């Protein structure tokens, strides 16, 4: 009875919270750090949507594998002898022992330490010690006891996603209109992208949603949060309000923010990449690059995968004191209410020069990742927001998500070349509100039970 009452209460609170963000542009601060909704997030978001696990270039060779998670579900992402990719539950079918305990490597087989069941990297059960003694003369039905694959696995432009939901829509359809914007990150070169080594990983006492909502479109914070990097000459911009003008996008469950660049400079990408970018992207995309001189800066693919494309100084003097471009993809992995593990990759065009790859990675390191001079301050904010939202009464406060609501209209159809909805300003909250609406829609959707 207590459980039912509690569930009803949570449901009512969430319904009111959804109404409030939609109609009033106000968000209940409790959702930044609330244990009673964390289970709902796991069941109704992370068990329902697509979640990014790994980039293909992390496992380029047959036998390569990496360990990844969807919340607490552990997976081995493998490339088999035929080059095919598998996402397999990292759990022996016999007694549930964690099958693989190394975070990356190369192996054609996984052998359980407990009783010695051995599986191929396709998931097929190969060996069972003392099979006849244990299971009789006919042995064990090895097909029945193969490793369990993730219910769904699909690859989008080199990005390996999995879903715990067997009925999830195809990945291409899930990304949908957002694909048009992701092209700017993922398709600059026809050779594709590769990761620069393994991801940075670190733990932050901050809620995953705060990072996801920041990356979906928070251009407004840059003039305050990142002021130190402007003053220090890391972010080479003329004014702290450099991100005021731009375009904010909502597309499907996702969104992004465009940033302007000096005409013809293309975020300072080397000529080779600029050439291939202008060749690989479609006419409408190229028009934005050439005529409007804008490119997506940050983006979030719901729920917890974000992109950042920027250009920053690496050195105090010399050639690298100008803006050097880079791309990072990150996962905000929930570890519980108000706590996440961040996974952060730097990616470079495969056909870029070795020198560019190195400099680009250094520009990323100097600004993003655990030591990044911008991300350090994001961490301070997200941890602080999470900390104070835990208060019984401060959790009842409503926060302001109303920027743009009174005076900014979407760009009329026909005047913006891309799909989704485009807003002609960056200091607005449309994408963030869209993120929270999508979030509440998931939490309140009980079609498949709780």
């Amino acid at each position, binding site marked *: 009875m207590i459980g039912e009452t509690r569930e009803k209460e949570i449901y009512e609170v969430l319904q009111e919270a959804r109404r409030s963000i939609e109609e009033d542009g106000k968000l209940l601060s409790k959702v930044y750090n609330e244990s009673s909704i964390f289970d709902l997030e796991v069941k109704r978001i992370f068990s329902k949507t697509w979640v990014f696990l790994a980039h293909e270039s992390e496992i380029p060779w047959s036998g390569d594998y990496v360990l990844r998670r969807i919340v607490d579900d552990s997976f081995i992402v493998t490339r088999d002898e035929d080059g095919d990719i598998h996402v397999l539950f990292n759990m022996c079918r016999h007694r549930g022992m964690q099958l693989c*305990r*190394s*975070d*990356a*490597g190369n192996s054609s087989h996984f052998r359980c330490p407990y009783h010695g069941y051995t599986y191929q990297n396709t998931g097929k059960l190969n060996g069972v010690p003392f099979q006849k003694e244990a299971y009789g003369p006919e042995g064990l039905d090895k097909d029945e006891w193969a490793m369990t694959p993730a219910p769904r696995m699909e690859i989008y432009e080199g990005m390996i996603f999995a879903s715990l939901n067997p009925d999830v829509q195809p990945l291409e359809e899930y990304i949908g209109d957002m694909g048009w914007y992701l092209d700017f990150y993922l398709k600059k070169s026809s050779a594709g992208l590769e990761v*620069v*080594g*393994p*991801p*940075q*990983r*670190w*733990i*932050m*006492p*901050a809620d995953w949603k705060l990072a996801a909502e920041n990356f979906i479109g928070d251009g407004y914070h840059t003039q*305050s*949060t990142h*002021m*130190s*990097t402007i*003053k*220090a*000459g*890391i972010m080479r911009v003329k004014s702290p309000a450099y991100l005021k003008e731009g375009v904010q996008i909502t597309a499907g469950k996702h969104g992004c923010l465009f940033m302007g660049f000096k005409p013809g400079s293309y975020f300072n990408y080397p000529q080779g990449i600029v050439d291939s970018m202008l060749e690989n992207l479609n006419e409408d995309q190229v028009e934005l690059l050439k005529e409007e001189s804008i490119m997506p800066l940050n983006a979030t693919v719901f729920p917890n995968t974000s992109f950042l494309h920027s250009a920053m*100084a*690496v*050195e*105090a*003097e*010399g050639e*690298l*004191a100008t803006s050097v471009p880079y791309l990072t993809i990150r996962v905000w992995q929930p570890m519980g209410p108000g706590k996440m*593990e961040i996974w952060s990759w*730097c990616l470079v065009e495969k056909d870029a020069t070795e020198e560019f790859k190195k400099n680009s*990675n*250094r520009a990323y*390191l*100097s600004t993003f*990742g*655990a*030591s990044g*001079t911008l*991300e*350090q*301050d994001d*961490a*301070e*904010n997200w*941890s602080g927001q999470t900390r104070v939202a835990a208060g019984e009464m401060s959790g009842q406060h409503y926060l302001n998500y109303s920027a743009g609501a009174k005076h900014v209209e979407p760009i009329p159809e026909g005047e913006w070349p891309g799909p989704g909805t485009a807003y002609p300003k960056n200091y607005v909250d449309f994408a963030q509100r869209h993120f929270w609406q999508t979030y509440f829609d998931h939490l309140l959707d009980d079609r498949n039970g709780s």
Partner: protein
Amino acid sequence: MMLDTSVETYWEVYSFLMHEAELLDERRERDWLELFTDDAEYLMPVRVNRERAEGDGFSDEAYYFEETRGSLELRVRRLETEYAWAEDPPSRTRHFVTNVRVAEGEEEDEVAVRTNLLLYRSRGSDPKHDLLSAERKDTLRKEDGQWKLRKRVILLDHSVLTTHNLSVFL
């Protein structure tokens, strides 16, 4: 002639390291920067949990820090602004530097130094602290009679960092 690693050298190196830790714990980053040579390298590779046969798991591509004197300068400049929120109010840190081993360096005016580092970090009024543990492999060079840090490689004992950011130096 290679530098000897006599008691005198050991004592100089030890004193250098203690002084360096003091500068970091006293938040004197600008003075700390002066300890580096102009061609300094400051590296902290990502470490991946690997099987024993695969080695120690340190990446030679992915880093938490891949710095030169020029990029450390930018980091220090940022901390000197009024807007470095991550360190204002500052972390309270204590660099515990132990197990100091001094050997001959590759160049005649250099020594190779290995130390263990335990970094205690406390922030705000949070009763919980962060601890980072690492081995540091340093190359110290004598320039104009002064020891300088030519290269530092910080070899973490973590595959996942247990602190919310790296706004402090190791």
